[in-house]
């Protein structure tokens, strides 16, 4: 397995290098943006001397490489810095918000991909039938609406008119105090707030895995081994299981990227449902030039994509030995 070991080491080093590159790129990008967090205070009428003092206090008047070095050394010690706008450590500010977004997006996207793979397999296996041609159109149709509009429709119909679910928020105000931080996530109250945002995520993204899986299934159905299975008289259910297994690689590849993108894209759904996630906080942070927060959140999302691509590559290397050879 030495070639496999080599493959892991090479790809691992590449991954670490990419992470560093992204970290640096984000640093440079946000420092070169027009204005800093004092811009809005200037608009509010703060004096020029007070702003200069504030910039000096936060080290914004020093050369870029000094700031960069401080940023990297702090980061190495696990210090993410402080939000100059909210005056709290970045980690304190983002941790619960990120968790709230993650707990909405990760299960919803996983469910979306499983359901999409199922829809893709069913529609793709009936080649040339009405089901293949028309079955996918409702899925694409729903996915063509902007996420915020889907969410608004869900709120108006199921919360306001039918009164089945709460219109917004993650937990009812004035709920019972729980001792642990994860306690609220296990209550029925959370569950009932969870249904509509979850549905919105599924509706918005379902067409992606469905279409990719359908195309992939159509391709695999045309290959010789499928025909062989048909000739051996294997029942249709078993045959579809074989096909789905072969056809699932493209869907698997795009899953982590899709998940990471949804972490950013869910901001629209969070806004409509007033979900206390990172999405809306990020929009506010960008507009308020709160760089430490923005930089960290962007880095987490980017790192998520990079690391999961690394894991998918490894998985590929295990499944298909030809890929281990350096590209």
């Amino acid at each position: 397995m030495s070639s496999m070991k080599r493959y892991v080491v090479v790809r691992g080093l590449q991954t670490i290098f990419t992470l560093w590159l992204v970290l640096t790129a984000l640093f440079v990008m946000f420092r070169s943006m027009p204005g800093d967090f004092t811009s809005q205070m200037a608009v509010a009428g703060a004096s020029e001397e007070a702003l200069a003092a504030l910039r000096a206090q936060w080290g914004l008047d020093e050369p870029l490489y000094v700031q960069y070095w401080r940023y990297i050394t702090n980061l190495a010690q696990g210090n993410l810095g402080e939000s100059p706008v909210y005056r709290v450590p970045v980690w304190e500010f983002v941790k619960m918000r990120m968790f709230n977004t993650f707990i909405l997006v990760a299960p919803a996207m996983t469910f979306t991909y499983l359901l999409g793979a199922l829809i893709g397999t069913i529609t793709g296996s009936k080649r040339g039938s009405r089901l293949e041609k028309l079955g996918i159109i409702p899925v694409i149709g729903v996915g063509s609406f902007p996420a915020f509009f889907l969410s608004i429709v869900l709120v108006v119909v199921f919360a306001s008119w039918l009164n089945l679910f709460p219109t917004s928020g993650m937990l009812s105000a004035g709920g019972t105090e729980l001792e642990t931080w994860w306690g609220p996530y296990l209550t029925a109250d959370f569950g009932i707030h969870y249904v509509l945002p979850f549905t919105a995520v599924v509706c918005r993204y379902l067409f992606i895995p469905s279409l990719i899986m359908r195309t992939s299934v159509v391709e695999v159905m045309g290959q010789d081994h499928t025909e062989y299975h048909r000739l051996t008289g294997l029942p249709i259910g078993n045959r579809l299981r074989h096909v789905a297994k072969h056809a699932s690689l493209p869907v698997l590849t795009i899953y982590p990227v899709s998940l990471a993108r949804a972490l950013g894209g869910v901001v629209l759904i969070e806004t409509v449902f007033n979900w206390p996630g990172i999405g809306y906080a990020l929009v506010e942070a960008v507009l308020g030039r709160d760089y430490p927060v923005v930089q960290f959140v962007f880095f987490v999302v980017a790192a998520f994509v990079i690391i999961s691509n690394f894991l998918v590559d490894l998985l590929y290397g295990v499944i298909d030995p030809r890929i281990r050879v350096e590209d």
Partner: protein
Amino acid sequence: MPARDAVSLPNTEAFENIADHHIVRNFVGGLRMMLNDRTTAAYFWILVGITFLGVVGPMLAPYGIEQTQYSETGQILSAAPPSINHPLGTTFAGYDVLSRLLVGARPTVITGLLGGGLILTIGTSIGITAGYVGGRTETILMRFTDFVYGVPLIPFGIVMITFLGVGFLSSILVIGLILWRGGARVIRAQTLQIKQYPFVKVAKATGASRRRIIIKHILPNVAPMAIFFLALGVGYAIMLQASLTFLGVASPFTPSWGVMIRNAFNSGYMSQAWWWSLTPGLLIGITVLSTFMFGRGYEDLITADSESVEADTVAA
């Protein structure tokens, strides 16, 4: 030199023969092929209809978009349900929804065409350059594409808008600067294939310049795929612009359909005055769906080989 003049004189004949020009012939042939397919034709006519609405919509609007409507008794028609005078009802401030919808068609069409055009131009340029030039240029361009590919769309769009300044046109520019990524990948792959064909090698052997080969041989052969990405780009641009508008980072003064939904949502009268946000939302959805389905139908017709580009197109 009278003989030469005689050759270049008959301009009228050249004009008559314009229908024989290969570009016109291909265009007409392609259009006919597309319109013969019933589904693709249907989506095509929907898109033509919406574009037409973008041109004439503001002229058809029965009222001004900021003209407060009054009832017969002189009260402001605030969030009035659909009636004969106001077929789509009125907004909370008493504006006519139908008028705003008709006027809002224009910014939406402009967003689609400009955004789609930018996506097409940047994506095709990067794809062809990377595919044809190869070497280090290709590596750098494709690593850059990979980077843009992993970027979360909406947060990054907002960052770029703060760079360029909030506005209608800057939001379109931002869309173009991000969404070219899917097209660049596929067009590069196509260029790599075309580069291997004998006619390109022959052209190179006879001393054709790089520019000539790209314009005369590569471009016409990637054009169908580029048009497919134009169709998708139009849809994605409209969707993303509406999303940025909804978050309040595109101009709220351009009365697009996205602004209508944002206003309805912010008013807090969403559930009571459902007619306010329903029609703009439906129109955005139908437009995006039509571009997508038209693009797919078109791609089905033009690609003989079943090379799958699904992963790069769907997840743009």
